[in-house]
């Protein structure tokens, strides 16, 4: 649970994608999984991301470029990186879900608040890929309603779809 009176905040994160959207992404503990390839993507306790075969539990790749897998699209895995969280910022790293290869990192995203103690967890993020061009003015960025919740350290980022 939050150990300081940080404002409860939720972030709806839309990652634009010109390619196809993935239908087979599902909720997974501390991450997300792809039912079409039978791969799960999890955030490890050392703030890295690991791809795991759903059938075997074996590690397929790992990456220290991000810590929390958030959303999956055709050929893109968006994951949050909290290395800047001490200053109240985080970035989104885009990885190749097949290899874990780093592709690009977003500019730092600030929420206007900083953790007051090292134990303060990062914000709850609710992210999804959106088809490029679908974010017209007046159209909601996200179909789901954000539920502002505090997030205890290590708690799931499973998304409601």
């Amino acid at each position, binding site marked *: *649970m939050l150990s300081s009176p940080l404002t*409860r*905040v*939720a*972030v*709806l*994160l*839309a*990652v*634009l*994608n*010109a390619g196809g959207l993935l239908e087979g992404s*599902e*909720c*997974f*503990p*501390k991450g997300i*999984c792809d*039912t079409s390839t039978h791969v*799960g993507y*999890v955030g*490890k*306790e*050392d703030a890295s991301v*690991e791809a*795991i075969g*759903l059938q*075997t*539990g074996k*590690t397929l790749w790992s990456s220290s470029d991000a810590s929390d897998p958030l959303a999956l699209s055709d050929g*893109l895995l*968006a994951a949050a990186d909290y290395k800047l969280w001490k200053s109240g910022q985080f970035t*989104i790293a*885009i990885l190749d879900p097949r290899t874990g290869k780093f*592709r*690009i*990192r*977003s*500019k730092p*995203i600030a*929420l206007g608040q900083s953790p007051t103690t090292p134990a303060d967890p990062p914000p709850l993020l609710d992210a999804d890929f*959106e088809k490029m061009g679908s*974010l017209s003015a007046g159209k*909601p*960025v*996200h179909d789901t*309603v*954000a539920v*502002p*919740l505090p*997030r*205890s*350290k*290590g*708690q*799931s980022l*499973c*998304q*409601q*779809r």
Partner: protein
Amino acid sequence: MTHVVIVDPMTGGVTEKTPEPTQVAPNVNPPNSVSYRRRGEWQKGPWSSGNSIANVESNGEGNATKIELRVWDRLSHNLKATIDLATMESEAGPYVTADGKYLLLPGSPGVNTSWRVFSITNPREIGRALLDSNPEDICIVGSQLFYLSSISSTAKIATIVLRSVDLDSGRQRWEHALGQRQTGTVPRLPQ
């Protein structure tokens, strides 16, 4: 408070967008609702999943009290199913997956507890699974159940393990260590 951030994966560019007014669902919380755990917190009242709305409710009084899972059609509000969950054998309480698609009910507490698994979208019991004590972050994908368990290494350090359970057999298929974590707090008891 909600921030809306748009990320362009080609350039890394970030755009903040003025959030739409949050749609707040009417607070329909039947007085006989039973608390359940979801997303690491105790909650009470109906939740939605796809075309269904579900709730865990108590029915009757005293020793005759029954716990039921009730599922309605989201559009017509017609009752689709009432599933008798029998009496609560464990103080752990029902568990609803983060996506709202499944409800799990623990049996008698022990080292390995047998949990009954119910589907919300196709309201019925779909299997049973033997889980470690205090499972967290339960998700179901196809015929596999995944969850996190915590194994104490010292008084303040625990190893977090991701486990997979086959819902057809109810047995663990594999486990995968995710590293060590300082022991945190457990969710508050239902109020």
